[in-house]
């Protein structure tokens, strides 16, 4: 075991998979010479050469499309989109092509494509570089959606994504890149569809994704000082969604708070809430389900307003208390 950063974990996962399988290669803007906008692919051009670490023109639709094609003929491309906001440039390639081809060709081809992209706010990068767009893709049948919250999961989930025969949207978080946790040196994967209970508690369930997991854990620590025991669940993958773990927890606690950074309207937290209301956990709910989410606004440039636009630890504490009466 060794403490490494989330960014290092992503790099290690890619490197190890590239040594394991010669069909794995990288494409993206500035990932070669420059080492990636966040330095994730730093050094990989020298290590693997231009054939396998390919700098692309500024044309997301073009190189994601190339990735879909390469995947169809047996390669395992990992495509980096510099900011997750730019996925909107290649919606057709992802939604109409990658997600549909295997189905429409009756399973004759598959699309083992990974699209890695950092999302989230907190860097003062304003409205076009700070969004959390995972719900758009969770809505599309044929795509898997993964949101690791720490270095361990980042490495294990990325390996699962690369080995998966279907297109996977892999949402990293800019603010998590520097965060360290212990990660084993030996090969491991984290399976899709298995949520992680970060902390056990009997009073309220807090389900969170990505950077909101650590904020929920911090909120839970503080609430614990007041005698409130929260069960914090990291969903890890939105598609597939680990309904069973959340249902089981809510049956125990009777209360559910869902935390996401994305704006509230149409977010994945609404999907979780609906799943729970439709499940056998309904009869155990003793309070309304609470969504703690971003405001329904573009992310502001002003650093204080940016903070106010997305859930902070204090927001999670305040909102969690509204369901504890």
């Amino acid at each position, binding site marked *: 075991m060794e403490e490494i950063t989330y960014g290092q974990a992503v790099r290690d996962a890619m490197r190890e998979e590239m040594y394991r399988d010669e069909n794995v290669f990288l494409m993206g803007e500035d990932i070669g010479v420059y080492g990636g906008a966040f330095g994730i692919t730093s050094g990989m051009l020298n290590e693997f050469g231009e054939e396998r670490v390919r700098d692309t023109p500024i044309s997301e639709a073009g190189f994601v499309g190339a990735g879909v094609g390469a995947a169809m003929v047996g390669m395992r491309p990992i495509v980096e989109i510099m900011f997750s906001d730019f996925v909107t440039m290649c919606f057709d390639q992802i939604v109409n092509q990658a997600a549909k081809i295997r189905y429409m060709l009756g399973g004759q081809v598959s699309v083992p494509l990974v699209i890695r992209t950092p999302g989230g706010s907190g860097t003062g990068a304003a409205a076009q570089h700070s969004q959390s767009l995972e719900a758009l893709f969770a809505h599309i049948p044929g795509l898997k959606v993964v949101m690791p919250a720490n270095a361990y999961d980042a490495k294990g989930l990325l390996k699962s994504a690369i080995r998966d025969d279907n297109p996977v949207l892999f949402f990293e978080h800019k603010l998590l890149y520097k965060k360290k946790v212990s990660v084993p040196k030996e090969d491991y994967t984290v399976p899709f569809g298995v949520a992680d209970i970060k902390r056990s508690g009997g009073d309220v369930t807090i389900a969170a994704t990505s950077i909101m997991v650590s904020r929920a854990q911090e909120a839970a620590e503080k609430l614990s000082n007041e005698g409130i025991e929260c069960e914090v669940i990291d969903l890890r993958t939105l598609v597939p969604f680990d309904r069973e773990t959340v249902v089981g927890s809510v049956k125990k606690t*009777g209360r559910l708070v869902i935390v996401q950074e994305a704006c509230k309207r149409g977010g994945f937290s609404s999907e979780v809430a609906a799943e729970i209301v*439709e*499940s*056998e956990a*309904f*009869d*155990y*709910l*003793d*309070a309304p389900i609470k969504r703690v989410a971003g405001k329904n606004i573009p992310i502001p440039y002003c650093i204080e307003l940016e903070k106010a636009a997305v859930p902070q630890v204090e927001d999670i504490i305040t909102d969690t208390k509204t369901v504890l*009466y």
Partner: protein
Amino acid sequence: MAVELLMPKMGMTMEEGTIIKWHKMEGDWLKKGEIVLEIQTDKVKMEIESPEEGVLLKVLAGEGDVVPVNKPIAYIGEQGEEIAIPETSESADSEVAVAEKADTSPQQTAAGSSEPGSKIKATPAAKRLAREKGIDLSNIKPGGPNGRVIAADVESIKATPLAQRIAQEKNIDLSEIKGSGVNEKVRSEDLEDKADTFVEEIKEVSVQPLKGLRKVVAERMSRSWDNAPHASINLEVDMSEMSRFREKVSPVMEKKKGLKVSYNHLLIRVLAQALKDHPELNARFIDNGIEYCDQVNIGIAVATEDGLIVPVLHGAELMDVEQIVVRADELIKKARHGELVLSELEGGSFTISNLGMYGIKSFTPIINPPEVGIIGAGAIKEQPVVENGTIVIKSITTLSLSFDHRAVDGAQAALFLSHVKELLEEPFRLI
């Protein structure tokens, strides 16, 4: 299109089934063939599988409910599908649930609630607990925001079931009563001041509702007693020869099969022969007449923790003692562990009931319908017997035969029983 899940008819005699346990809840997704619930038929416990893939849309009968065969107990279909339930008994409840905005919708108010605008707000958890505890939510003081009853409010109600019922009848808020019972539990006495019109003394009596095997036994015994005119005859039998035979054969069997030979086994062997010789006793009284059975299928009455159960040893007339010992012991073991399958409970043509191990001398067994005869075996006891003018000690038992006088006459029954006596007293006749 939603499909009905019916209470199955698992045998000719099954008229209704009791729901033991639901393994699935409304809203659960069912795979075809998945276990949905467990029922008790008139004979065995059974698991019922889902006939279709789909969502368990509606459960019509709860655990403990008794449902006639071929009546619907649940609906399976697609999520959100409308279902038409023929009976109206359920509709009152669902209308209460619909009357959400009672004050803005007078029509719904009239259907759902007797007091306009008095819709009780409670969390799903509180409603579930109230349902489980049989508490009326209107008697609970809401502790949540917006006048909402929460689970803790329901849990805080500590009252005896009787007190809860009185409180409901007299419209008393239990949370305002200080209880005099253990842990301040509210007892019926505590409500007397509040309910001044309540003078009648009600003693709490523990009535165990008839269900499961108890109910089945009760019904079958009543039916037999009401329909079949019982006549009983008793005969003393000298078991000395049989006793000697048993002492010799039992160690052999124990060595060979690890099983002991009991008087019951030997009695079955003798009955198999006697019933073959007297087919009028090896019969079933059915709707359109008397069915004389080709095989001798002997039911063995077994007392279990749940009640009386009668597994059937089929084809006893073709079995030797060893086969009888093995099969009878297997059936008795299965009966005690509730592992009998339906075919092992059906098709009996005669029954044997043995109370000898309790020291009972003789008794009047009740016929196991639709059979026409049952033999009751009493204890074997050494007794002085006058033989050729001298007193000798012999091992004596009393056999009691009850028969259905519609099918069998006294003389036939007497001949049969004396033949049984003859075979028991002179076992060599079996050869």
